[in-house]
């Protein structure tokens, strides 16, 4: 019985796998977080004024998502990036899409809430990466 317990335990444990901690992934997330924060602060202006910065931030976030996707056993981090950049969801991707479609700047109160959600989301991505072995 005890032997069976150990075998079952080892079998279950062997099914578990998550990619090791990756300093490059942490750097991607922290860099994009800082760039997102700076751009959100500028979103009191109409989007045309920051068109290049919007394209650049989108590119950087997509690169980080692709980097996460290319790694083995990295489904959870990949999913987090997918949610963050998805234009139909209300985090970074959704915010940039809303800004462009609205064609004008936002109120400081709205931007403060947006910042809390998006930066909080990045914190979760970073926290997961840092928790890995």
């Amino acid at each position, binding site marked *: 019985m005890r032997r069976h317990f150990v075998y079952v335990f080892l079998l279950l444990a062997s099914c578990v796998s998550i990619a090791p901690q990756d300093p490059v992934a942490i750097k991607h997330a922290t860099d994009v977080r800082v760039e997102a924060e700076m751009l959100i602060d500028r979103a009191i202006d109409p989007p045309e004024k920051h068109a290049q910065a919007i394209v650049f931030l989108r590119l950087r976030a997509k690169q980080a998502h692709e980097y996460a996707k290319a790694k083995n056993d990295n489904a959870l981090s990949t999913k987090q990036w997918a949610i963050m950049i998805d234009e139909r969801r209300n985090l970074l991707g959704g915010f940039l899409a809303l800004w462009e479609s609205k064609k004008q700047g936002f109120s400081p*109160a709205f931007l403060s809430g947006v910042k809390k959600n998006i930066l909080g989301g990045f914190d979760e991505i970073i926290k997961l990466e840092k928790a890995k072995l």
Partner: protein
Amino acid sequence: MTLDEKACRDLKALADAVERTEWERSSEVHMGVSIDIEGLIDSMKAQLREIARRELGGYVSRLLGDVKVFIAEAIGDVRVWAGQMVGGQLSQAEFSFLVGGLTYRMALHAITQAGTALVTLQRIRNAVIDLLISSVLKILVP
């Protein structure tokens, strides 16, 4: 099938059963080395308990504490945004966008918790494998 063939088959089945029982009862022989499985498990028991205590002991309370803090913060955010909507600083559409964003932030938080649980399991697996290897080596190379 002749009677002899049947008797022969039954005898073989009996021999297999005896052999299996012997194997399960005490020890196993591989490559000419005898390993006392029960003894091995007994010797690992205390250390397995220590691994479980170390890795899982504070895990559940940490997890619950973390979720509690997260939910309290989320409720606080919704209160602030609702107040701003009433005060005219946020439109209804903006309020809805922020609450939607909060649900996705919660999704990211849940994924982080799931990942942390996986990491804990992985740490336990590594510790058990290390323990198993060192225990077997102690028997094979005393």
